[in-house]
């Protein structure tokens, strides 16, 4: 690499003009870039799951700790699995299993509805990209 020293000298010539405060300002600028990207581009990330049974809210759970929720319905028990950032209907007594086959929900606004057992699982976020999502 014969170009190495020349490149380093070229970079050093530019870097000489950076003063301590300039580095501080640049650090802040990069911080604003990262913070704004995280804050504005992750609106679709859900932070809680709303479980309804028979049309009423059965439970609202935070999507930060893994857990399993058993929801009773007219046909039996629907089992809902919560993991950090996502949730799914793991088992349902309904005949067609649509809500189970939807798999993991990971977007704010996503809904899985187990109509026969009158249970629904919806993900909510601070600022959801959608009012509702189903597949």
């Amino acid at each position, binding site marked *: 690499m014969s170009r190495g020293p020349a490149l380093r000298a070229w970079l050093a*010539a*530019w870097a000489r*003009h*950076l*003063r*301590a*405060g*300039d580095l*501080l*300002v*640049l650090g802040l*600028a*990069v911080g*604003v*870039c990262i913070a*704004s*990207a995280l804050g*504005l*581009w992750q609106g679709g990330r859900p932070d809680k799951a709303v479980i309804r049974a028979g049309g009423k809210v059965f439970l609202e759970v935070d999507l930060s700790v893994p857990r399993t929720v058993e929801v009773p319905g007219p046909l039996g028990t629907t089992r809902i699995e919560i993991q950090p950032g996502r949730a799914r209907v793991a088992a349902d007594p309904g005949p067609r299993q649509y809500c189970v086959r939807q798999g993991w929900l990971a977007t704010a606004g996503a809904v899985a509805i187990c109509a026969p057992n009158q249970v629904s699982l919806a993900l909510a976020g601070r600022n959801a990209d959608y009012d509702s999502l189903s597949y």
Partner: protein
Amino acid sequence: MTPSATEIELRPTADDHRVARHAAAAIVLTVAEAAIPLPLPGVKPGLANIVTLVVLARWGWREAAWVALLRVLVGSLVLGQFLAPGFFLSLAGGLASLVALGVAAHLPRRAFGPVSHSVLAAFAHFAGQLVVARIWLVPHDGVFYLVPIFALAATVFGLANGLVAARLMEDRGG
């Protein structure tokens, strides 16, 4: 020739000539930059601000404001953008960055050089544009979705322009 009573005589001072020269250089950069294709409206290097930075460091804020505002005005006339939305965006950005430069010029010179001025002005520029865009052109919070891109552009181009301005002043013994 004896000046008649109705004739108004304008005597440009040395200061006026200097402002005009710097403004001309900034206008040339604005026009040249308009030829560069850019993926997103509003994201551009802002090379003319190099001139503003040098004028700020050498001659102070008042002259920098003259140069920047003349550049916005004449640049838009040359490019056929005068009084079009783009002109008001430039004007808002220009005014916001002049305010930022006015504040930044008071930071201690030992620690904060042209790069600081440039980055701060670039952020103020896009913030000013965004406020006008949000209130007037795109009255929807969706414009803020682009903030990270503008912030990144302001960081990168602010750094580049600041470094170029610093080197220009060094080469000419400023």
